[in-house]
């Protein structure tokens, strides 16, 4: 009986023990230094690369036109925005929502790629600096 109680108890507390979400968690800090289009396992598969078509400051949303059409995302307080200055041979730095302007080239990753078409929150956005667009 005791063993059974123990096992059930342990199962019951497994959620408490297990830290973090049930999803792969990539390191966000070194991601900052990876140029647009070069994020391993993500770029071209689970991110949107294109030009900013529209920015809605009131709703904090951005619409990006890419090869596969347009994608929107909500920019939340969790969204990391980086300025990719690697083309200028300058270090990449943090950006802000104000850096999102129409015409700039960006790469954007949704927090949940399955909700990308619904305009869900963006996990990160890289803004390419030093392009002619």
């Amino acid at each position, binding site marked *: 009986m005791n063993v059974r109680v123990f096992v059930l108890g342990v199962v019951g507390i497994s959620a408490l023990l297990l830290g*973090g*979400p049930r999803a792969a968690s990539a390191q966000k800090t070194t991601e900052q230094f990876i140029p647009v289009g070069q994020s391993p396992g993500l770029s071209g598969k689970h991110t949107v690369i294109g030009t900013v078509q529209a920015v809605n400051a009131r709703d904090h949303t951005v619409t990006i036109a890419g090869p596969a059409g347009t994608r929107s995302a909500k920019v939340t307080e969790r969204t990391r925005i980086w300025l990719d200055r690697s083309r200028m041979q300058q*270090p990449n730095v943090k950006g802000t929502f104000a850096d999102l302007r129409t015409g700039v080239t960006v790469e954007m990753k949704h927090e949940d790629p399955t909700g990308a078409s619904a305009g869900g929150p963006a996990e990160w956005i890289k803004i390419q600096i030093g392009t002619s667009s």
Partner: protein
Amino acid sequence: MMLTGTQGALGRRLVAPLRAAAAVMWVPWVLLGVVGLSSCKSAPPPPDRQAQLVAKGRDLFFNETFAGNGRTCGTCHPAENNFTIDPAFIATLPKDNPLFVAEFNPALRENFENPALMREFGLIRENLDGFDDLTNKFVMRGVPHVLGLRTSVASPGGPRTGWSGDGAPGDGSLRSFATGAVIQHFTKTLNRVPGVDFRLPTDEELDALEAFQLSLGRQQDLVLPLKLKGTVPKRGQAIFLDNRLGKCNLCHVNAGATANLGGGSLGNANFNTGVEDLPDQPARLTAQRVPRDDGFRTPGDGTFNIPPLVEAADSGPFFHNNAIETIEGAVAFYDGDAFNNSPAGRALKKADPRGVGIELDGTQIVAVAAFLRVVNALENIRESLTLLEASLKVSSTERQRLLERAARETADSARVLAGGGLHPEAVAHLQDAGRLVAKAIASGFFKRKHTEEAIREQQKARALLVESS
């Protein structure tokens, strides 16, 4: 695998003269044109595609600097020290080794490494919470080995890499890990500009590096219990597997890196076990600044992922911060307040009908450690046998490399057992095996003979540790 870096250095000092002697011995035979009579009976078969990928990955791992500060993956994960570094190994390195780049590259002098903590405790500086405040935002971590990754990275929630499970950028996979490592550790300056301070690995290179890393060490988990012969290790295994006493197997199923709390495998999981709450952590006894490590994610939740235990006994110091030097100390940690007051310890206590977390006495701690020493020695013997047998089928250059690795693994087996006062007869066989491997390395004509004898000695040693299944 080697017990400590000092012993690793001893191994290298043993192997290097033998290799030099072997080279000298070869000269007259080359002149006489009788090279390879003993064991090069036929050309090795062409490697298949996967083997080629692994070979490419090996070359990248140990030789590719990615146009950075001179470090390679092998700088911190050297094959001759079980793919990790510790203070004793570090002490054997020359001053200009790229591990010490912060000591001789002015651009990396500040906020890249802490040379004092690196040399005394084997700690590496990581900016896991961002690069915007390099002076204050960093953690100091040990270097995990990269053995048995095929058994330890996967989890239902996605791959778990590094000490806290979130070590890789991109998709978070082992394949992507090298990209983050180059950015963190290979840079020429703190600007970290791709194309200037380093170059990022290509897709092909990431494929090869992943294949190489997955080829290292165990390819599958043990199935416990083993039919151990030693009295104390056998008792240690029983304690390990007892979910009401040692409780070790809940989070280290089959002494591996996966958890099963009773409801099925959780794969590699994260737990807050209270390591950061240990009193008198070595690095914090110094005057150096060592911020609290908050583990998984940014900001962190205090959790770290599960390391495999089979490889533990010869790859310390232990835990993400190298807080404990010995395997006995690492087991004893779970009997202490830091663990039993941690979220993981409290949860175990809550689930226990007697309301206890993990309570082990001194003899029981040593018994569990003895079990871990034996499974480590068995793994080293398995690896040695694989290397020795493979050495009989390959070209001469590759053969030397395999024999040298087998020599180190063999030395590790003996030292791990001897360090715990375990199985002296097996230790004697392993020492004989080591001598035979050294002879095989040095010999021009009798490599096969010595290698086959070494294999037999290894088998005898193994038979003393465990009944054949």
